[in-house]
């Protein structure tokens, strides 16, 4: 774990940035460890990209400090910082071919021609992009441009690599492929990655730790498991995955087991024998709806989604919950006929979590 970091690759203290009257970043503290894959996750306008741009040096902070490897770089220009950036739209130089794009950083730093050729080719090989040296960026596909951008940054062997939604422009298949590759490149190179994304799944999949941002502030920093299973705030609970409110607690959809009541084949309002045993104190009796917590309700909607089925269930308490069941044995024919069925749901107390509820959204009394 990264709880104690004497040698932070990036250390940020009370960072603030205002544009006119808008406070884009409102006091951010971060310690990012050496060799860590660190993500900043948040919706658009949360300030994550602005933090990244301040680390790169494109924006000057209104106040606060940024240290890279123990050195205060707050007022240094981008070209004096040992970081490189992979831009969202790649920002490849259109008038240079692939090899010259990758060489660029070495060239402006005065690395001799033969050496930089060799290093650029090696960087291109490391992102699996051989044989396109002479192509212009306009002649490449989106995925190829992405790899060139990555090679162009990596060839400089920076201490920290900043990635600004680098996979955002790729289609799903390619994005998943690049995720795997990014992770392996990061492990191999041992470089600290600071990765900005609005895609919670991407952040959870790739990161050693995730910072969730909202409205210029950090809501929570933790490992993907911590952020997902123990969200610190209502915002994190809602932004990272789906969270169901059941009474005073919250439960993730996949933690809820759905058991169809045996006599509910006809569906509708016809009450089953177990109907009078609601609440979380009920004990498991049958195989369905396992767990040490129970509730009863009616299936309002069933969505078949390939590997899993999503149930939307209206509980007797008035809460509406979403439950995700893997389709291990069931088929689409089986699940859709459960619409309107009475169900008993079950979950384990250890999967419950609670967050400080704010404002009008407090849970209704059950």
């Amino acid at each position, binding site marked *: 774990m990264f709880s104690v970091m004497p040698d932070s690759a990036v250390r940020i203290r009370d960072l603030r940035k205002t544009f006119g009257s808008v406070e884009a970043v409102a006091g951010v503290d971060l310690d990012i460890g050496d060799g860590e894959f660190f993500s900043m996750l948040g919706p658009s306008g949360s300030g994550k990209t602005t933090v990244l741009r301040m680390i*790169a*040096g*494109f924006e000057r902070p209104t106040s606060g400090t940024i240290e890279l490897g123990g050195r205060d770089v707050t007022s240094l*220009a*981008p*070209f004096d910082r040992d*970081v*490189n*950036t992979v*831009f969202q*739209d790649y*920002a*490849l*130089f*259109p*008038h240079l071919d692939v090899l010259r794009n990758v060489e*660029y*950083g070495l060239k*402006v*730093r005065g690395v001799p021609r033969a050496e930089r050729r060799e290093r650029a080719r090696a960087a291109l090989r490391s992102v699996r992009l051989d044989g396109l040296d002479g192509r*212009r960026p*306009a002649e490449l596909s989106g995925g190829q441009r992405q790899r060139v951008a990555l090679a*162009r*940054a990596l060839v*400089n062997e920076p201490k920290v690599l900043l990635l600004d939604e680098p996979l955002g422009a790729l289609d799903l298949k390619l994005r998943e492929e690049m995720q795997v590759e990014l992770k392996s490149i990061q492990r191999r190179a041992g470089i600290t990655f600071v990765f900005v994304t609005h895609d919670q799944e991407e952040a959870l999949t790739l990161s050693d730790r995730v910072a969730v941002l909202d409205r210029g502030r950090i809501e929570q920093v933790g490992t993907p498991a911590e952020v997902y299973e123990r969200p610190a705030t209502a915002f994190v609970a809602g932004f990272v995955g789906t969270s169901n409110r059941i009474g005073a607690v919250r439960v993730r959809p996949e933690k809820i087991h759905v058991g169809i009541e045996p006599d509910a084949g006809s569906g509708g309002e016809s009450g089953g024998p177990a109907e009078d045993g609601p609440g979380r104190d009920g004990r498991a009796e049958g195989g369905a709806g396992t767990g040490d917590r129970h509730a009863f309700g009616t299936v309002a909607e069933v969505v078949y989604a390939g590997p899993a089925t999503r149930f939307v269930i209206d509980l007797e308490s008035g809460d509406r919950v979403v439950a995700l069941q893997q389709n291990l044995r069931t088929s689409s024919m089986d699940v859709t006929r459960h619409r309107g069925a009475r169900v008993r749901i079950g979950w384990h107390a250890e999967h419950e979590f609670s967050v400080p509820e704010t404002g009008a959204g407090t849970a209704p009394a059950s």
Partner: protein
Amino acid sequence: MTLSPAARIALRAVMALGLAVIYVPLLVVLVNSVNADRAFGWPPSGVTGRWWSRALDNEGARTAVLSSLKAGLGATAIALLLGTMAAFAVARYRFFGREAVSLAVVLPIALPGIVTGIALSNAFQVVLKPLGIGLGLFTVIVGHATFCVVTIFNNVLARLRRTGTRLEEASADLGADPFRTFWHVTLPGLRSALLAGGLLSFALSFDEIIVTTFTAGPGARTLPIWIFDNLFRPNQAPVVNVVAAALIVLSVVPVYLAQRLSSGGRSML
């Protein structure tokens, strides 16, 4: 859109007529430059190279062409420098009076040449004369530069607004200081805009006559002024005709280049 056959024929005729109005007179000039008949009688009585060789030997025409080239190149050089700088200021920085500066730079192209001419002539008399600088090629260049700046400014400004600063950020991120970034990234990005603006600027200067009249001393006769002076001397008419024919042929080159540039030839990116 589909047109009826009659409409199609009519539109083609109109287009042919329009192009004929423009190009037939030019063709006549070209033909007359080799017309053996001294009075340009029609149809030509024969083909001769006499006028061309006389024009090449003509001292006045040669110096006039040279003056015009110098004026055009000088004015374009000044315009490239100042126009690019002004475009950067307006596109990349926010400052008090930015819109006013933008308007002030563009205005001279709309001003009547006669106004610019009088104003510059007066100013040169008042400011430069006491310094011992008389009217001549230098004042012509300055006069032309006032409106040549506009073509560069507009071209570069449009390019800067379109490309934004992301490539420059990428360059700085990769370790390039501002000078290297300008040289390796910004300037190549502006190359086609500068070339197109420069060609237009040179063309504007090359056939300028009004401002030139007011700012050229007796020593600096550009080609348009020389042509104008000789137009009504019957003896010189064949030579003037040859010069005009030469200019037609030469004009095709920059126009062709400019068209290729603005149609976004891949190699220029």
